[in-house]
């Protein structure tokens, strides 16, 4: 059976599961186990199929056309290396989320609002990646959005969720319309919607730029590019955690897939200036996203914002690839491209992991607000370990996977002097600095996230009485954590696995890595830069354990437990510990005043007054206030103005008719 057929069967299985779920979603336990089990199975099969295809890379593509969709076109589906990779990403996340869901779903109070849409959502994402004509692509794209919207609305009674769902739906539809325009432009008046036809057609540079901008609007709004990100931090946290994980870790990747598919594959080499747009947007997104995250105290919103940051990093890398490709520099282009894909993979690992962790915390304490957490490292030992792994990985610290992709991106940045255009020459280093800033801020952000919610003393009764979560959830998280480490210490394998994609899209690949001594990676040449995660890990482990052993053997190993010292002042109240806002204060003072118009207002009671001093922090989301609020206002204003027409007298309506008639007759008299 053709490889693509296997994938489609898996999708069919997912859809079938959804239908079944509608039927029996009332009986909680059974349904939960059954549905998530089936979903996991389907995803696993799909993942293995796609993975084998990618590793064997037979080259070419496996295609299939179904007699549905646009009548005279049919629904084209195609599995090539790029699609295979993203299928792996999607289905890995899907399988993990399902495994997690088996345990997490038990606590779901409205399973009938989650179970049917969960497999449907996964099916939608699979189909988007498989689709090979504009119509099926958009149809699946919107189906995906719709299913995820339904999942966001699962807890529609909680405050803010309906608004989140609404904003999400509108932004999604905005994105779809942008994509629609892009495809309409690519397909031309005759309407050749097949990707093959679009690929074959020649596109002028200006047209390419237009389409690229439309794609940035369409795919970017789904991926969460600033300033189109507003829906993301609302919608992602509103969904159940394993769905949030999918939306953040996987759906944004599907959006990026769309961007790659159209801009790199269908469009052909674009103009170099367009790469500048992508670079700037990416850099801004990375920094803004992580700064938003730093200002957050809601754990899931923080994670959602950090997703925005990572999307920015990926887009920067893609922009680099575009820039190099536009100048025909194949090797650096493939380097940047591979780095982007690598980061896609990594982010799907650790963001999913982190959202699972947040879900576990939510299950254990019922709290998302970090200022009510703390000390969980004692109550939830396993979760705290895997969550720590996620935090280290996402902070781009060796020896975990996040660092490898960022290192590759920096290597690509370092190739920029070879670019002929001055604009890029000067822009790219600055963007690189932005990336470094984003990386450092990410580290700060996750020190805060972990330090406030897992370390220190519990800030609420819920946190004090927290308990470790069930085995399924832990298993899912452990697997992802292991993957984070593996991808970190064996990057060469991943890079080689990604090479067929680079070959397929750019026609060039990085030199094989897995053959090198000590499994280190050398993207360009050893003299230019190399990294060996494995050795770094080994060195650290060995030297640390040597020291440990030595000290325990020859120096003291006595321990005395006492109350914390704190310069002699041990504050009794856990509430007096550093809060999320407090931790972010130095950074808020550095960046916030400019970017968020942040201001702290302290109300200090008079001497002798025993009232507590109060600190109020004022933050403004300028993107919302400057871009969206005016738009909303304009629409409302127009609506109010036009609404007067609803209440005219009949004579008024008649005069409207009369006016129309006379105008038309006049036009007729004047023109014809």
């Amino acid at each position: 059976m053709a490889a693509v057929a296997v994938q489609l069967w898996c999708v069919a299985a997912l859809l079938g599961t959804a239908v079944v779920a509608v039927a029996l979603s009332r009986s909680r336990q059974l349904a939960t186990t059954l549905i998530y089990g089936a979903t996991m199975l389907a995803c696993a099969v799909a993942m293995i199929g796609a993975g084998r295809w990618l590793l064997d890379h037979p080259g070419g593509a496996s295609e299939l056309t179904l007699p549905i969709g646009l009548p005279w076109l049919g629904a084209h589906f195609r599995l090539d290396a790029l699609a295979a990779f993203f299928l792996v990403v999607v289905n890995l996340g899907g399988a993990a989320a399902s495994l997690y869901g088996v345990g997490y779903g038990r606590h779901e109070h409205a399973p009938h609002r989650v179970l049917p849409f969960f497999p449907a959502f996964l099916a939608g994402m699979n189909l988007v990646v498989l689709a090979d004509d504009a119509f099926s692509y958009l149809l699946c794209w919107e189906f995906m959005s719709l299913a995820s919207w339904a999942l966001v609305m699962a807890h529609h009674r909680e405050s803010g969720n309906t608004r989140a769902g609404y904003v999400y739906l509108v932004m999604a539809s905005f994105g779809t319309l942008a994509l629609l325009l892009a495809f309409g432009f690519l397909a031309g008046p005759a309407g050749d919607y097949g990707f093959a036809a679009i690929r074959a057609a020649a596109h002028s540079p200006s047209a390419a730029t237009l389409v690229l901008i439309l794609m940035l609007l369409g795919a970017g709004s789904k991926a969460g590019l600033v300033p189109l990100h507003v829906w993301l931090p609302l919608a992602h946290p509103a969904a159940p955690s394993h769905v949030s994980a999918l939306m953040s870790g996987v759906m944004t990747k599907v959006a990026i897939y769309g961007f790659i598919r159209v801009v790199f594959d269908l469009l052909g080499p674009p103009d170099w200036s367009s790469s500048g747009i992508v670079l700037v947007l990416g850099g801004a997104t990375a920094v803004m996203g992580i700064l938003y995250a730093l200002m957050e105290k809601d754990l899931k919103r923080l994670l959602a914002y950090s997703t925005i940051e990572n999307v920015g990093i990926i887009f920067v890398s893609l922009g680099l690839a575009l820039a190099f490709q536009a100048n025909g520099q194949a090797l650096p282009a493939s380097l940047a491209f591979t780095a982007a894909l690598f980061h896609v993979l990594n982010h799907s690992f650790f963001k999913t992991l982190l959202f699972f962790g947040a879900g576990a915390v939510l299950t254990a304490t019922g709290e998302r607000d970090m200022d009510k957490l703390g000390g969980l490292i004692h109550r939830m030992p396993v979760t705290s370990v895997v969550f720590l792994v996620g935090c280290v990985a996402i902070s781009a610290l060796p020896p975990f996977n996040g660092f490898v992709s960022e290192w590759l991106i920096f290597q690509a940045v370092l190739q920029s002097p070879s670019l002929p255009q001055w604009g890029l020459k000067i822009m790219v280093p600055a963007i690189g600095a932005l990336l470094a800033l984003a990386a450092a801020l990410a580290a700060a952000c996750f020190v805060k996230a972990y330090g406030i919610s897992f370390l220190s003393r519990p800030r609420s009764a819920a946190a004090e009485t927290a308990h470790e979560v069930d085995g399924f959830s832990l298993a899912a998280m452990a697997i992802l954590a292991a993957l984070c480490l593996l991808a970190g210490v064996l990057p060469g394998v991943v890079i080689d696995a990604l090479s067929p994609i680079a070959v397929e899209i750019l026609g060039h690949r990085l030199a094989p890595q897995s053959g090198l001594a000590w499994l280190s990676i050398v993207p360009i040449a050893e003299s230019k830069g190399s990294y060996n995660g494995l050795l770094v890990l080994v060195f650290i482990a060995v030297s640390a354990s040597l020291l440990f052993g030595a000290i325990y053997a020859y120096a003291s190993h006595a321990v005395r437990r006492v109350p914390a010292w704190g310069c002699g002042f041990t504050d009794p109240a856990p509430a007096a510990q550093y809060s999320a806002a407090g931790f972010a204060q130095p950074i808020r003072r550095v960046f916030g005043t400019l970017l968020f118009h942040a201001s702290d207002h302290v109300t200090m009671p008079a001497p002798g007054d025993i009232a507590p001093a109060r600190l109020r922090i004022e933050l403004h989301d300028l993107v919302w206030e400057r871009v969206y609020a005016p738009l909303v206002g304009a629409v409302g204003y127009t609506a109010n103005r036009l609404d007067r027409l609803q209440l005219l007298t009949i004579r008024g309506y008649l005069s409207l008719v009369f006016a129309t008639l006379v105008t038309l007759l006049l036009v007729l008299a004047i023109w014809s």
Partner: protein
Amino acid sequence: MVVISDILVQGIQMLLVFLLAPLLTGFVRKVKARLLRRRGPSVLQPYRDLLRLLRKEVVLADNASWLFRATPYVTFAAIWVAAALVPTFATGLLFNWTADLIVIVALLGTARFFLALAGMDVGTAFGGIGSSREVMIAALAEPAMLLIVFCVALVAGSTQLSTVANFIASSQTGLRVSLGMAMIALVIVALAENARIPVDNPATHLELTMVHEAMILEYSGRHLAMIEFGAFLKLLLYVSLIVCLFFPWGIAIFGAGPLSYVVGAGVYVLKVGFAGFLLALFETATAKMRVFRVPQFLGAALMLGLLGTLLLFVSKSL
């Protein structure tokens, strides 16, 4: 055979930095004392402190977690590995290609990450202050560092330290303004990263001013020893980084035989000593600045780095 000797040489370097680090700190303290017309402790004092701390029992807060106890070792190991990967007396050591400059920076980042976490673990106000300020400083230092890397890499065409050192040593690069800027920037970053005056004062426990010390306030005994030792190593690392990037002259080329290694080592020690002297001089000459002046200070480094890079384009294009 070759591999053995390679590993041997690499081992020597690890040992060298291991032994040299406390000495450098001691030396700096000594010089500072001298400049203040004090006698000051012996240069070997740091060794003694470490040994004393090692022997003491650990006083641990009740709610300290395993992370708190693991951090000293992780931190130290990370810094040690990083330090071992910077060419000191010879380039092109066996494991140099394990990590380039970026990785070394990142390794220090790992160390900082865990230290900051440990600072928050016990849940005292001081730890919070220390960690939050530390990460803020780091957030500003890292972009500057990257730009420095970028600038150097543009000149040498590599981020591989050995290559860079060889390239610059082989004096085909004349005196470059941009390199000068990069060096100043690196010095600023080094001061910030090592919690030296004017960014932080390693000798004070005045809570409003301290950063690094506040973070490790809860540590004691062998843990404290590890962390202190880590700090020493970090200082040495940065010094030898500056030295190997900007003054690599006299550094031995790999495989040049034991003699040149010895010479290289000698030269290296001299250079480090000189750098330590300058550091002491600078620290006595300046005062600590307010925490929220630090961003401007590091911003200067950032600007210098960027300027150096752009300047490089210009000079190259000419």
